[in-house]
C-alpha cells in the first residue's frame, strides 16, 4: 500500500502534500516544471464572483525568513476560473480544493454554489481570513459568530465538503475553530498569514502600496505549529496545516502537531520543485523514524500511541 495515502472529507489523496492557495495560481505555471499528477491536491487561487484587480503594487516585500504579500484577491473571476482554469486542470488526475472569497456572505454563497459543481473540485476552502481584503474579509476571520454564519450559509449550497481557512490574527484560535466546526465545517485549513508591515528606510513609507500585508514563510512556522497543535486537540474535523513548510521535516512537524495533510505556500517561489521534492522525501523520512504510514505521525505530539517507535539514544 501507498504509505502516503490520505483520506479526508471529499478528498482521496495520493499523498498529503499540496500547494497552498495563492502560491500556485491555477497550476499552469508549475506544470512547466513537473506533472501536476504528482501532487496530493491543488489549492487554487482565491476566486471571487467577478474579476478583481486587487491591490496596487508593490505587493510583496521580503522580511527575515519570510515575506509580506498584499495581493488583494486578484483573480479572473468565477466564470473564467470555471470555464478556463478548472477545465484546463481536468487533464490532471489531481483533486482541486477551490479557495472561495468574497466581500459579502452573498458573494461567498454565489461562488461556492457554482464552483462546487465543477467535476474536479472536490472540496472548498473558505477564505475567511485574507488580511488584505478591506471590505469585510478581516471581520469574518476574527469574529466567531460571523465566521460560523458564513460557514453555515456556504455549507447549505456547496456540493462538496467545506474546509474553513483560519486566520492566525486572533486571541483565541480554538474559539474560531470550534465555532466553524459547530456550523458544519468538514475540515480546517490553517494558518493564513500573520498581519505585518515593512517600512522603507529611505522614504519611511510602507514598502507595500497597501501598507500592511500578510507574513508567510519559515518565520511563521512556530506560530502555525502551535495553533495546529492547540486546535487539533479540540476539534473532531481534520486539519490541513500550513505556514513556512519548506522541507519534508517541516511537513512532518505539522503532521506531529495534528495536521492530516500539509500545504506549501511561499516555498514554491523559492524552489518551484519544492512540492515534488517533499513528496519524494517524506516516505524516506518517516521510514527512517520507524513509521510505516504517514497517518501514524498525525497528532503524535499529543496523542497517546500504543507503539513507541523511536528510541532516542
Amino acid at each position, binding site marked *: 500500500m501507498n504509505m502516503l495515502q490520505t483520506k479526508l472529507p471529499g478528498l482521496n489523496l495520493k499523498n498529503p502534500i499540496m500547494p497552498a492557495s495563492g502560491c500556485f495560481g491555477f497550476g499552469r505555471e508549475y506544470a512547466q516544471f513537473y506533472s501536476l499528477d504528482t501532487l496530493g491536491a491543488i489549492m487554487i487561487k482565491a476566486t471571487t464572483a467577478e474579476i478583481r484587480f486587487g491591490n496596487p503594487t508593490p505587493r510583496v516585500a*521580503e522580511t527575515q525568513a519570510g515575506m509580506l504579500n498584499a495581493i488583494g484577491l486578484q483573480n479572473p473571476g468565477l466564470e473564467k476560473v470555471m470555464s478556463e482554469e478548472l477545465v484546463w486542470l481536468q487533464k490532471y488526475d489531481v483533486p482541486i480544493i477551490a479557495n472561495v472569497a468574497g466581500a459579502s456572505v452573498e458573494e461567498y454563497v454565489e461562488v461556492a454554489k457554482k464552483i462546487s459543481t465543477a467535476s474536479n473540485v472536490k472540496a472548498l476552502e473558505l477564505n475567511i481570513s485574507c488580511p488584505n481584503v478591506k471590505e469585510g474579509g478581516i471581520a469574518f476571520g476574527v469574529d466567531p459568530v460571523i465566521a460560523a454564519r458564513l460557514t453555515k450559509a456556504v455549507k447549505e449550497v456547496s456540493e462538496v465538503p467545506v474546509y474553513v481557512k483560519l486566520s492566525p490574527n486572533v486571541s483565541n484560535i480554538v474559539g474560531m475553530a470550534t465555532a466553524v466546526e459547530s456550523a458544519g465545517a468538514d475540515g480546517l485549513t490553517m494558518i493564513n498569514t500573520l498581519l505585518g508591515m515593512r517600512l522603507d528606510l529611505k522614504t519611511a513609507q510602507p514598502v507595500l502600496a497597501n501598507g500592511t500585508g500578510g507574513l508567510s514563510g519559515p518565520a511563521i512556522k512556530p506560530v502555525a505549529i502551535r495553533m495546529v497543535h492547540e486546535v487539533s486537540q479540540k476539534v473532531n474535523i481534520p486539519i490541513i496545516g500550513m505556514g513556512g513548510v519548506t522541507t519534508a521535516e517541516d511537513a512532518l512537524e505539522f503532521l506531529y502537531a495534528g495536521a492530516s495533510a500539509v500545504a506549501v505556500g511561499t516555498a514554491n*517561489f523559492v524552489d518551484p520543485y519544492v512540492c515534488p521534492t517533499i513528496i519524494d522525501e517524506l516516505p524516506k523520512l518517516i521510514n527512517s523514524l520507524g513509521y510505516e504510514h504517514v497517518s501514524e505521525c498525525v497528532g503524535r505530539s499529543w496523542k497517546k500511541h500504543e507503539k513507541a517507535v523511536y528510541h532516542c539514544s
Partner: protein
Amino acid sequence: MKKHEMMQVVKQRPLTHNVYELTLKGELVRFMNEPGQFVHIRVENQYLPLLRRPISIAEINQHANEFKMIYRAEGAGTKLLASKQSGEAVDVLGPLGHGFPTDVLESGKTAVLVGGGIGVPPLYELSKRLMAKGIKVVHVLGFQSAADVFYEEEFNELGDTHIATVDGTLGTKGFVTDVIDRLQLPYDTMFSCGPTPMLRALEANYSDKPLYISLEERMGCGIGACFACVCRQAEESNAYKKICSDGPVFQAGEVLL
C-alpha cells in the same frame, strides 16, 4: 522545457563602484533566444535572502553556453551575488518572460534604444541582434553621474551612443528625453528599459511610432503564479497583465504605467 539549473560562475567583474557583470555557464543558455528576457536568481541556499531576484539577460553566448547579466549590488541579495566567485554555482530559474520583438523591423531601418541606469543591460543583447539583422541602432543611455556609466564602449561598437547624466558629469546634462529631443533623429521603432518615470515620459512624447518598453515590479514567483507583479491593462478597468510572464516587455499603450 528545462527552466532551472545550478549554473557555474565563469566570471564576476565590477563595472562601476556598485555595478557588476556576472557571466554564468550552463544548459539553460540554450533556451535563451529573446533579448529582454530575465532570470530569477536564488542567491543563497538558505532562508536569507528568502526570495529570488529578477535580473535581465544582458548578453547571450550560445556558442560558449554562457550568458551575462549586469546588476547593481545594493540590497542584501545583490550584494551577496556580487561575492560569488568563479567556480561557484548560482541557482537560476529562466529564461523567463517575453522580451523585445526583433522581427518588427526590417533590415535598413533604424531603432533607437533608450536605457536608464540599471535598465540599460537588456538593451545590449537587443542591440547586438538588431545590428546582426542589418538594422541601424542608436543608443541613448541615461545615468546619474559619470561614475555610474557602464558599457559605453560596448554599445559604441554597435552604433552611435549618446550619454546623458543627471549631474552633467558626462555627455548631455539632463535626461534621455533631452538627448532625443536634441538629436531629432529619424527612427522607426523605439525600445526602452529604465525607471517608470522615464518610460512614462517616452510614452507621452514618442508614441507616434512603435515603442516597446520593459517594466519592473517586485516579484514573488517570477513565473506568473502569485499575482505580485501585475499591471492594469489599458482598455479594461479590472483586466490585468503579469509583468513576469506576459512581460516584462510590452508595447506602449498595452498596459497602464
